[in-house]
């Protein structure tokens, strides 16, 4: 019951937040000079005033601000995210087309960063001044401070050009033919570089955090007890200590989920990954308001779901939270 109440409260806050996001972004977009008619005329190589006016009238851009905003919010409430001016198709359709690619990239990168980050963190926590630890610190800081587009291009030059293992761009090779596994393998190969690039930023956070908490946990009494009972080093670390060290990492992972999505914008652009990030970038450039707002709406949804999932995961690893 308590759980239901907390959850419904959260859902309510989320909706309020969502509407606020929409109104704020709509107003901000409106404040900026110029509009999508200009970008359409750019993509056409120029247009006269008459055509610009016609485009504005077609998309209701000649209406007063309040009318446009009202129409939009009304549409969203009935689950209609509007019609993309630039792509000439319904925004919902456009986003659903792109969502799977982004989810695949973001989830796999998050998973990779989490697993590898925690492993590296634990390894370095066991010998805090060893060579492994220094190496992990270096790798983590490097991944964190290098801009993702640079890491991306570097990986491309390394593993697509000099050693030709991975394909350069996109999500699949449309020229290959074969069954399900052929395509799955093809997508996996396309996924590798963008996934590593995106994971590299978060690897640093997770490895540093798990190193710190692990060191703290390893110094605690029950670990000493476990050791005293004669358990092997691995049993102590992975069975007893890790579970306790994980919970701050999971919290962070949940909080970082929104950052992973924003990171995806750059990574997707570099690798032409056909996801929401590329779409977001292109529609911002094109000033395609319905698409931008639609993507923000979906990102907010994804973040909220991500946070809820984090919550549940925390309950799983920490029994003390289960009652709450």
């Amino acid at each position, binding site marked *: 019951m308590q759980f239901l109440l907390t959850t419904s409260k959260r859902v309510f806050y989320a909706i309020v937040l969502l509407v606020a996001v929409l109104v704020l972004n709509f107003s901000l977009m409106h404040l*900026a*000079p*110029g*509009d*999508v008619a*200009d*970008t*359409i*005329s*750019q*993509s*056409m*190589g*120029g*247009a*006269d*005033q*008459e*055509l*610009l006016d*016609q485009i504005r009238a*077609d998309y209701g851009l000649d209406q007063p601000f309040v009318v446009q905003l009202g129409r939009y919010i009304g549409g969203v409430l009935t689950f209609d995210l509007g019609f993309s001016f*630039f*792509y*000439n*198709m319904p925004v919902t359709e*456009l986003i659903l*087309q*792109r969502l799977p690619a982004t989810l695949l990239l973001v989830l796999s990168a998050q998973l990779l960063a989490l697993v590898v980050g925690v492993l590296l963190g634990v390894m370095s926590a066991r010998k805090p001044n060893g060579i492994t630890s220094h190496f992990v610190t270096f790798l983590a800081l490097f991944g964190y401070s290098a801009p993702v587009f640079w890491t991306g*291009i570097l990986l*491309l*030059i390394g593993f*697509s*050009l000099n050693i*030709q293992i991975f*394909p*350069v*761009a*996109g*999500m699949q090779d*449309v*020229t290959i033919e074969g069954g399900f596994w052929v395509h799955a393998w093809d997508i996996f190969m396309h996924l590798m570089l963008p996934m590593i690039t995106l994971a590299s930023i978060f690897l640093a956070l997770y490895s540093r955090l798990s190193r710190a908490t692990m060191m703290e946990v390893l110094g605690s009494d029950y670990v000493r007890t476990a050791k005293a009972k004669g358990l092997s080093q691995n049993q102590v670390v992975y069975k007893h200590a890790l579970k306790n060290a994980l919970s701050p990492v999971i919290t962070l992972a949940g909080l970082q989920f929104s950052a992973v999505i924003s990171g995806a914008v750059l990574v997707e*652009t*570099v*690798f*032409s990954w*056909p996801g929401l990030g*590329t*779409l977001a970038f*292109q529609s*911002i*450039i094109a*000033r395609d308001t319905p698409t931008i707002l639609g993507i923000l709406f979906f990102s907010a949804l994804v973040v909220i779901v991500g946070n809820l999932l984090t919550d549940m995961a925390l309950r799983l690893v920490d029994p003390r939270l289960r009652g709450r």
Partner: protein
Amino acid sequence: MKHLIKGFVAAALLAGTAVADDAPKRGGTLVTVIGTNVRNLNSAVQSGIATGYPGAQLFASPLRYDEDWTPQPYLAESWEVSDDGLSVTLNLVKNAKFHDGTPLTSKDVAFSVEVIKANHPFKAMFAPVETVETPDDHTAILKLSKPHPALMLAMSGQLMSIIPQHIYGDVPVDQVKTHPRNNENPVGSGPFKLTEYKSGEHIILERFDDFFIEGRPYLDKVVMRIITDPAARAIAYENGEVQMGAFESLPRIINRLKKVDTLTVTPDGYGAIGPLDWLAMNTQRGPLKDVRVRKAIAYAVDKNFIQKALMLGTASDSRTGIHPDSPFYNGEVDGYDVDLDKAAALLDEAGFPLKDGSRFGLTIDFGWPGVKPQVEYVKAALKKVGIDVEVRSSADFPTWAKRMGEMDFDLSWDTVFNWGDPVIGVHRTYDSTNVGKGVWSNTQGYANARVDELMAMAAVENDPAKRKALYKEFQAIIADELPVYHTNTLPYHTVYNNKVGNPPVGIWGTSTPIDMTYLKD
């Protein structure tokens, strides 16, 4: 005056230039790349280079052009311009079919002209066309209100896509631009038909077996991948993942790709699209009202530096608003070689003496991040003659477009395309009736009665030699009065793998059908 060209003669000529030493081979999949997302596949209602490439494959036009700017038969096997220049008769090929099997008739031509007039941004193309008569299924007569030589180029490339009336005629003519079948299951009569279009990912085309030119196209399949990042595109060319792409414009990447053995990188194929870089000057604001100030700026800015150092030698000199590859280009006008003394003298003469190292201040705008170096260079160059330039950046294209459209700028870096005939893409910049009407209109506020007169005469002059003379004088006046300081061509390059035979490097580049392109063994 009568132009009558028989189809078979020209076809033989075309084939002659195309074959070269090894004969084209049937079959294969060509993987190509485009750098921007495509908004609309229907080139009858959407212009632009992104639409041009798929558009020209899906939809055929009445004419095509060879490398020497001579019109060649395509959907029209022959054509005829009446002596008074007021009617143009197109004799269509008899065997043209749309992708759904319906024969293409003159009715479709008449319909397409109507649709283009109502939706296409380049109103100048068909404005003088009053009606299209269709005496029989294979004859279309365009009736003009005045002679209109620009019509020839406007009937080629991506500019006059013939679309089927039975598909696109179910909505009012002016709403075809949002027709659902522009992107989904579009039907044309071009060499390739659409298999799949995934926005932001790829366009896949397959050979249209009933294409009206027998034996063509040579390729079975054309894949157009959308890769927006230029560095990623470069790697894809290098490792062979992509075999052809056009409109590459980053000098560093062009020069790097030139060194790759498996690739050919060429600036050919952009004459008709005619992309030009220039420094726009608002002739209605402050010191820039004075032509001497504008000339001083031209003398102070070293365009050799822009071409050689900033563009790393990938751009070529252009001195007027007409692209250097165009037959109308007049390269004899003053190029304003750098001369700081002359610039200083002109500024003194205009009444702006040097006081404490400065004469006056100006702002400079730019619309996209790629030209920031040019803008910064102009600032540094003008500092030398005592003009303080403040660089105003724009958050994005619409912000800049708005400033330009409302003439809220002093100087601005601009890129404008010719789009075939000067009437289509050149006049708009200098026409005094087109002042400040949105971006890429006459945003410089320039007005000269003789220039207006010359453009009006050239627009209706059917004799190529006389027309050339008119444009020669036009360009001389522009170069002398400098509403725009023309610096260089945009360094567009086409990149193709050496396995690609007959790449599209004619005047229209990739905005032409690639029915003659093939893959070598």
